[in-house]
């Protein structure tokens, strides 16, 4: 075989090239390690902020607020670290355990109390004090926590009874629609005013599909958004029943009390409002894409932006993404559920649902061991001050979290207002009950399905599943109570040193939860 001398020469150099590359990488790494932690190459103090909000707008919003902050504090640089949601929990755990975590971190939703106390700094004292960046605004002098539209409920850790984060934006459920298509169907771009009108629009869509021989679905749906919609329909239609089940408080019971009431025989599936809610689910699901329970968020987003669906049931967090990707104007409105005047689905409704959904509200926390905690907190103060949040909201197009800051154009209607009626309980939420519901769902939503077919299989299994869910809650509460016993005891001892954090509030939460679990355990024993 004939050999190429140049190629041979290159081959002989390959090991040396590899070594040189290795040394180069090592030199760069060594330089990075040698650089003082938290210092930029230009000597500025660096505050890193890690989060998984890769949606359009968030990065730009934080960047804009960061640049404004840096202008006020020339010795500081704010850097963002964006991590995809799927790998975020693993990434975060590795960084926290390895002691290389950024100063500010968006709390992963699955972080339990033990990890939160271990890795993050409680902010109770800070949020009780005024935010100096609100000076000269209507919020001047108010405790920082009282300057948020949700009273900083999203940053409050119930189990730990302290504040562990603040967030620059809020989220609530939203119904997006394709304005162009809606105009074609109804002659107008304004969304349906109520549920009856929504039904009429969907009926027109069916006719439109038939005329054109196409298949545009009513809703772009995926597994999670379908569950959220089911929950909202149930929350509206079970308001009256939920309130009846709680004569002491006059407010609808929560999920666990709802399950316990079922086991005690205080309601059953023959209740008209419950059957109506299921019928409502069935009727709406006709307008979902086939196999919606197996679809992911990306599938539903794609279907909507490609014009394959009229509506998309999601949250305010999708507003910027949808506007950026869709080739048609996107409209948005509140979730539409049947009102009490609806002839078939209104009997259990008290009124429109209060806007309290905080499922999209983040908590940005400060790592416990960072040496730059004060600077990190100071940046968070600015980011969630009236002027800082205004900059964030204007640059991001996301819903602001601070009182008095205007919402982005088109989303004003979705701002939390403290109006409406409290949500009724949901049938869904317990892991076992959800599983049974999912297993029988096709008997409700399938072509030959119906409420009776669904209940035939679901009803008997549901009671067993609800009991298992409640037993798990009691067990979880007992574990939490034991863990708290020790942490509270240590906190009380440390109070002698002026330390110990919010030990009284933690004991308050523990006592409340322990009493609740004791009552529930007794109820379960009584109904066995």
């Amino acid at each position: 075989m004939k050999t190429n001398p140049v190629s041979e020469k290159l081959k002989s150099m390959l090991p040396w090239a590899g070594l040189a590359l290795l040394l180069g990488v090592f030199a760069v790494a060594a330089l990075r390690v040698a650089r003082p932690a938290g210092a930029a190459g230009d000597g500025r103090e660096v505050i890193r902020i890690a989060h998984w909000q890769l949606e359009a707008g968030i990065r730009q919003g934080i960047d804009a607020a960061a640049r404004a902050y840096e202008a006020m504090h020339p010795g500081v640089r704010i850097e963002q670290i964006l991590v995809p949601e799927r790998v975020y929990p693993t990434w975060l755990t590795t960084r926290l355990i390895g002691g290389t975590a950024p100063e500010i971190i968006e709390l992963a939703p699955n972080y339990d109390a033990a990890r939160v106390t271990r890795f993050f700094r409680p902010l109770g004292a800070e949020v009780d004090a005024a935010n100096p960046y609100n000076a000269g605004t209507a919020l001047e002098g108010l405790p920082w926590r009282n300057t948020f539209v949700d009273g900083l409920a999203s940053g409050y850790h119930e189990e730990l009874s302290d504040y562990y984060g603040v967030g620059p934006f809020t989220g609530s459920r939203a119904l997006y629609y394709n304005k162009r298509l809606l105009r074609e169907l109804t002659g107008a771009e304004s969304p349906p005013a109520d549920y009856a009108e929504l039904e009429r629009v969907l009926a027109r869509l069916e006719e439109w599909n038939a005329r054109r021989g196409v298949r545009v679905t009513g809703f772009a749906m995926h597994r999670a958004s379908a569950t959220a919609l089911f929950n909202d329909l149930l929350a509206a239609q079970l308001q009256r029943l939920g309130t009846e089940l709680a004569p002491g408080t006059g407010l609808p019971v929560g999920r666990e009390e709802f399950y316990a009431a079922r086991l005690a025989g205080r309601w059953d599936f023959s209740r008209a409002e419950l059957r109506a809610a299921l019928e409502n689910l069935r009727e709406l699901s006709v307008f979902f894409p086939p196999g919606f329970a197996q679809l992911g968020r990306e599938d539903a987003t794609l279907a909507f932006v490609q014009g394959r669906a009229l509506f998309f049931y999601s949250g305010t967090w999708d507003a910027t993404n949808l506007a950026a990707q869709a080739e048609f104007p996107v409209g948005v409105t509140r979730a539409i559920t049947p009102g009490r005047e609806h002839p078939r689905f209104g009997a259990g409704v008290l009124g429109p649902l209060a806007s309290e959904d905080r499922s999209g509200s983040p908590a940005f926390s400060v790592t416990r061991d960072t040496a730059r905690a004060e600077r990190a907190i100071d940046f968070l103060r600015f980011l969630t001050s009236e002027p800082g949040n205004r900059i964030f909201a204007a640059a991001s197009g996301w819903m602001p979290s601070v009182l008095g800051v205007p919402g982005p154009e088109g989303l004003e209607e979705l701002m939390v207002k403290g109006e409406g009626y409290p949500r009724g309980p949901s049938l869904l939420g317990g892991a076992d009950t959800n599983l049974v519901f999912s297993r029988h769902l096709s008997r409700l939503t399938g072509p030959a399905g119906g409420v009776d077919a669904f209940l035939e299989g679901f009803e008997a299994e549901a009671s067993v599943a609800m009991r298992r869910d409640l037993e798990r809650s009691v067990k979880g509460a007992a574990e939490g109570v034991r863990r708290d016993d020790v942490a509270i005891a240590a906190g009380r001892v440390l109070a002698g040193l002026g330390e110990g954090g919010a030990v009284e509030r933690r004991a308050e939460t523990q006592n409340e939860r322990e009493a609740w679990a004791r009552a529930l355990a007794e109820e379960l024993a009584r109904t066995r």
Partner: protein
Amino acid sequence: MGSMGMLGAAAAGMAGPAVEQAEAWRRLAAGEAAAAAADFARGEGREARVGRAAALLAAQPRTAATLERARTLLEGVVEEQLHDDWAVMAEYLLARWHQAHALQPDPAEGERRLLALLEARAGHPWADAAAPKLAIAWFAAERDAAEFARREERFAEILERVRDPAARRDARLVWADAALRLGPDHARALPHFRALAEEAEALRPSLRARVLFQVAESAAALGLGEEAVEGWRRFAREFPHDARAGEARRRAEEMISR
């Protein structure tokens, strides 16, 4: 007890940690039970033994041997008859051991120990901490109105001697919530919710909201219209963005229009 501990004792009304144990307590408060247990095992004295027992209660995995070791350590501290703060803390943890930590809890024994602690060491911070726990044992699951009433009389005497306002509030809340489950018995519950509302600033926000709404609701149920209206208005004023704010405003208006 080290000098820092003595200073702490003066500040908090009970023993603070000795300097050499402070870090172990900090670890325990942060949920690092294994590390704290190892730290306490290296220490000496009654504080180290109570600390180690507390750490063993949180150690994973929970085993009979670990829990028995915790109990033995606590009993040892109590049996030395020194009657110091560590002995009272050990008595409290022993009551909790029987109630909640043992693999086979003995609620009756836990309840007996809590009551004994409240009677023998009334006003001590660890005895005060026992008051809400006894309230849970006596009221949380009680559905017999006569038995409830009998216990109420006795518990009212006990609560009189509790000095810690936080413990008193917690006990009242358990008592009031139990009264609501009993019927609901608003007449029994309202005085407690009123007392809690007077100290509302001390409650965590979610509980403060619940208490304020409940004062109005129970007052309305008892025909105390003026108090109900004022309660709902206070709720809507203090929690204007809460999901219950609209409901509070509506109920106040309805009550006025009646």
